[in-house]
């Protein structure tokens, strides 16, 4: 055989195998599983590329691993099941090359189905997403896992042909995937190499990751190296036994298997050095590109409210709900001394806590780089599937509004009762009774801010006090009267020269 005859022969053989591959029959199962467990879940998340890509990687690997492993094991045991071993053994084509054909066919069918699934999911996301583009690394890792699981099934089916091989291989593949994530404890776990891990396991999918900073592909690179290494090593194994191929091929297979195992082992070691960075991604020092630590440039999308609310374009879909939730308050504060000119969304930073905990803080100072900008942090949990956009915006307003009011009215130690009364009145008038009621019932001026950030600033006003009565009075005033009074008396209020009784 020469190179000129190998290609057409391989192509004909592959066509035959593709026509008679069990994976083709399993495609409805795979596609059904993808729809049920990955597509539905991804579509229920906000249309942000980072969330959809992470969901695609972990979901698709789980959906495809079981059928692909089973089908490959099933096809590899075909010769024994159909008792054609003698007939095919005495043919000239090396055993290794002969066995590889059904593996290739199984992998091709799985890959075609997977690419179709990716095309649909990313196509729909492209229509829905407001900013950014597809994150290909997670999709590539999931794609690389298909030949790896196919090779696992192929080797098991080749060496242990039995009616029990395919089912047990399929379940063992699933068990490996499930077990791998159970063994991740905190950062620097080698089990992060598992292809269903898309980031810091203790953190879970985060909307803010890869939005303010570029996607860091460190873990994906390690996972790819591992998967390719495992695939090559597994495929080399059937060529090793005597008689499987010529001496040169066996030697090459042995070298390739050794090199592939080395690569896979190195990748596992690298994954073990991966820690969660401040941007919520896995940072592997040996693979990390410093350019990924530079913030992404973007033009925020802003509302046309009296004080514009400006969000990262990836969050543009939440702007209307956010604006609606904050507008009543912004209208009252606009034009007052100390009120911001705009409100700008910023990201958060992540830090591994003891055990499996993660500390999340606002990225940068609470105020903007300029005094005229206030920083806004979105809650960890974005709308859908567990809450609506309005609920999310209300939650955001509840956590952000007291801060904003405190920034204008004044806060900190020595805040006067009049200041608290006015702050409470403004929140009540802005339709944020939850914040006000919680403050009234607990008598504290503190609650957890977004992402666990410290958000003090809720007015401390107890029922029955003169300040409480003043707050009720002031909230009942028309908005224009309230605003006019504030324009006139805000400086005195902040200086502590106004008593509750003087509040209209």
């Amino acid at each position: 055989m020469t190179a000129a005859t190998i290609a057409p022969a391989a192509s004909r053989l592959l066509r035959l195998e593709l026509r008679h591959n069990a994976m083709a029959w399993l495609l409805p199962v795979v596609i059904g599983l993808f729809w049920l467990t990955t597509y539905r879940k991804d579509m229920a998340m906000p249309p942000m590329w980072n969330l959809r890509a992470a969901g695609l990687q972990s979901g698709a690997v789980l959906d495809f691993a079981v059928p692909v492993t089973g089908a490959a094991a099933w096809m590899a045991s075909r010769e024994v099941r159909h008792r054609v071993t003698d007939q095919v053994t005495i043919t000239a084509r090396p055993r290794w090359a002969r066995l590889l054909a059904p593996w290739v066919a199984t992998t091709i069918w799985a890959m075609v189905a997977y690419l179709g699934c990716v095309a649909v999911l990313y196509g729909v996301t492209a229509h829905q997403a407001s900013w950014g583009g597809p994150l290909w690394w997670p999709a590539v890792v999931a794609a690389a896992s298909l030949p790896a699981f196919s090779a696992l099934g192929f080797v098991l089916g080749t060496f242990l042909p039995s009616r029990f091989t395919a089912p047990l291989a399929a379940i063992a593949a699933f068990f490996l995937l499930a077990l791998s994530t159970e063994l991740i404890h905190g950062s620097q776990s080698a089990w992060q190499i598992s292809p269903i891990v898309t980031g810091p396991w203790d953190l879970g999918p985060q909307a803010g990751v890869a939005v303010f900073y570029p996607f860091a592909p460190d873990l994906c690179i390690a996972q790819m190296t591992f998967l390719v290494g495992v695939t090559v090593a597994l495929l080399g194994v059937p060529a090793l036994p005597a008689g499987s191929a010529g001496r040169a091929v066996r030697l090459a297979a042995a070298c390739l298997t050794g090199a592939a195992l080395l690569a896979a082992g190195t990748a596992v070691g690298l994954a073990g050095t991966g820690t969660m960075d401040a941007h919520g991604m896995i940072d592997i020092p040996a693979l990390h590109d410093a350019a990924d630590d530079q913030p992404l440039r973007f033009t925020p999308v802003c509302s046309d409210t009296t004080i514009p609310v400006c969000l990262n374009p990836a969050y543009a879909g939440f702007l209307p709900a956010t604006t609606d939730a904050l507008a009543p308050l912004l209208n009252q504060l606009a034009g007052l001394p100390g009120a911001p000119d705009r409100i700008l969304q910023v990201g958060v930073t992540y830090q591994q806590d003891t055990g499996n905990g993660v500390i999340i803080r606002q990225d940068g100072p609470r105020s903007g780089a300029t005094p005229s900008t206030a920083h806004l942090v979105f809650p960890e949990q974005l709308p859908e599937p567990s809450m609506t956009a309005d609920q999310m915006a209300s939650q955001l307003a509840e956590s952000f509004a007291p801060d904003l009011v405190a920034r204008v009215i004044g806060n900190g130690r020595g805040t006067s009762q009049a200041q608290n009364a006015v702050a409470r009145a403004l929140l009540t008038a802005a339709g944020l009774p939850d914040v006000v009621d919680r403050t009234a019932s607990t008598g504290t001026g503190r609650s957890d801010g977004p992402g666990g950030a410290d958000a003090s600033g809720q007015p401390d006003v107890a029922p029955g006090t003169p300040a409480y009565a003043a707050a009720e009075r002031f909230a009942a005033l028309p908005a224009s009267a309230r605003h006019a009074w504030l324009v006139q008396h805000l400086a005195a209020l902040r200086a502590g020269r106004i008593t509750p009784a003087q509040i209209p």
Partner: protein
Amino acid sequence: MIGARLVWLYAVGRRVPFAVSAMAVCAAGLRIALLGHWDAYGALQLPLIFEAAAAVCVAATAASPFGEPERVAGPWLPFLRLAVTAALTAAAIGLLAAAGTGGHLSGGTLDVLRNVAGMTGIGLLCAAGLGGGLAWTGPTGYLVAAVYALYTQWHPPGLTTPWLWPARPPHDLGGALCAGSVFICGLAVVTARGARDPGAPAST
């Protein structure tokens, strides 16, 4: 005595001893898994994986190595299929339940009973429809869906249909009825017809 000999030969022909060994390994695996400290996902998912493995072992024995000669050999075949399949299912449940005794087995024995029976039923239906060799496709696919349904208990949108019984509480009647009916249907079909013969379109 002759009856016992016939049952034994039938069982050997279908590799029942290997299936029992594999189920024993599953039970041992479950026991070892229960020694570990898992989070909520792991505590629910890992037993389900072993239950699925035991179920596919039962379903894999449905395939006949003899085909027509056996089918025309007498009236005992349906009874043999029924007895051996039911006994194997009971053995799988018993082994896994025994492995869970004294451990922190989520859902307890009732869960094992329902999940193994239901997934075995799926496997038997696949054996009848696709052939004994491909009986595993249904239970393994179902395992993925069921594990996802368990996951949605914490992460909506939830999958709460009783047809995904592993995600329902052990005492849930709907889940038990669905699993039970699938098992009875599978057992009935395999008893009456046996697994589809090799040579079916999907078995190439």
